[in-house]
């Protein structure tokens, strides 16, 4: 029973990791950009939530009313002003610029908020749980996190396959030159893609901050979890990303059950094993 409990906690944790991953997946899918500062933006989202919660007294989930549009705009401006200039055939500029951003952002957060750990007050939500059977109970907050993650992925899936903007995203992903002949401005489309990715990052940041203590240095680890979920799931598949996140979450939960020091390590090792045996992930898109 203890193990069932562990796996269930892992699955729910995986939802959060899937949220880390979808932003990355989106950016790579549409503009072949890998944003190394992704994890640090998640932490930025968490800090923005903290500022909103402490200054306006809103509840953490309500703080998204402000944090989400702010992150959306940061994403759009960042892409138009900075990242679009790095895109091209050479992978170095985007990689190094976003790596630089990661270090800059971490240290700015450190200067502004200090290295003290913070947490968003989860209140009742953090304490309550649903008892399934005698031994198995599910925390309400992890459950909500998971459901939100599924909703986010479902929403993105809808956006991608059922809307005009999504069609333009997919066309851009296929052929960046030809799509311009259709009247699609790459810079704007890339800006929107980054903006949407950052909106997801905002949600992920708030839920992360409700779940755990955070400080300015924990961004890169979140980048790695998201990245691992993307690769495990297979590039280009959003639902695959959810499965990737769940596998990672379960691996970490089982690792932690064996020895608390093994939580993160177990996740990384499962990722490396999958990379060795299934380098294209579990659900690769048929063609790249």
């Amino acid at each position, binding site marked *: 029973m203890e193990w069932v409990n562990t796996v269930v906690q892992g699955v729910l944790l995986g939802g959060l990791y899937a949220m880390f991953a979808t932003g990355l997946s989106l950016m790579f899918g549409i503009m072949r950009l890998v944003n190394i500062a992704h994890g640090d933006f998640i932490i930025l989202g968490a800090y923005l939530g903290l500022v909103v919660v402490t200054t306006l007294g809103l509840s953490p989930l309500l703080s998204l009313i402000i944090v989400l549009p702010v992150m959306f705009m940061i994403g759009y401006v960042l892409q138009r002003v900075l990242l679009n200039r790095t895109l091209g055939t050479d992978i170095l500029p985007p990689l190094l610029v976003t790596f630089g951003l990661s270090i800059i952002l971490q240290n700015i957060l450190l200067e502004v908020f200090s290295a003290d750990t913070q947490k968003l007050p989860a209140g009742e939500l953090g304490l309550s749980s649903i008892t399934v059977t005698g031994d198995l109970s599910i925390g309400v907050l992890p459950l909500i996190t998971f459901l939100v993650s599924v909703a986010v992925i479902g929403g993105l899936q809808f956006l991608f396959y059922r809307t005009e903007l999504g069609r333009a995203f997919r066309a851009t992903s296929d052929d960046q030159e030809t799509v*311009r*002949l259709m009247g*699609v401005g790459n810079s704007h489309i890339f800006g929107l893609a980054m903006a949407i990715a950052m909106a997801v990052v905002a949600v992920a940041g708030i839920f992360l901050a409700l779940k755990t203590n955070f400080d300015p240095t924990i961004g890169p680890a979140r980048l790695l979890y998201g990245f691992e979920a993307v690769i495990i799931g297979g590039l280009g598949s959003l639902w695959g990303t959810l499965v990737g996140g769940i596998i990672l979450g379960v691996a970490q939960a089982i690792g932690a059950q064996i020895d608390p020091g093994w939580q993160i390590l177990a996740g990384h090792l499962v990722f490396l094993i999958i990379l060795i045996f299934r380098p294209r992930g579990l659900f690769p898109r048929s063609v790249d």
Partner: protein
Amino acid sequence: MNILDVKNLTAGYGDFQALFGINLEIGQGETVAIIGSNGAGKSTFLKSVAGLLIEHSDDIVFKGENIGTLPAHKVVKRGIALVPEGRRLFPSLSVEENLLMGGYNKRKGPWNLERIYSLFPILKEKRRNPGTALSGGQQQMVAIGRGLMSNPDLLLCDEISLGLAPTTVKDIYDALPTIQKDGTAVLLVEQDINRALSVSDRIYCFQEGRVSLEGKPDAVSREEIKAAYFGM
């Protein structure tokens, strides 16, 4: 008034110059063909007009406006559509989605999905298939339909018969009168000289980045074309 006036256009890629002072004009509703051997600069010219090529002199006047410095996505909004060489369908989009992408800019005009489907009925049948699952001829129909969906005043077609069987080419060119009927001007780049002569009001022959011959099809002789084409 001409719909397109190109004066002394030079263009190139980096250190390589592909066009050396091209003068070309297209009248309202006119069909013009460009012929020439490989590397004569035909595709470069179309790309310059469509705004895909950055490095060119900026003397392209379309409907009285200089569009020489506009990027491709703004050029298409002014009413120029390019059917690119090699069709360039979006592989992860269905036939219908490919066509809808053509209408992304929402220009008003006679073309919509229904009219494309009546022009190329086979596409309606295959509208749920991925664009790339179609035969070459059908893919070309999608590419042309996608171009028309933007309701252009000028349609640029780059080698639309390349690599297709003669009967398929005929099917595609049979659509031309319908396109012209609405007053859409057409600029074709065509390797098949006979085809070019038979469908166009005027032809231009390019040779090594220059216009080597220009005239109405019945006013130019075979010998003149040969000389202009091969530079003999």
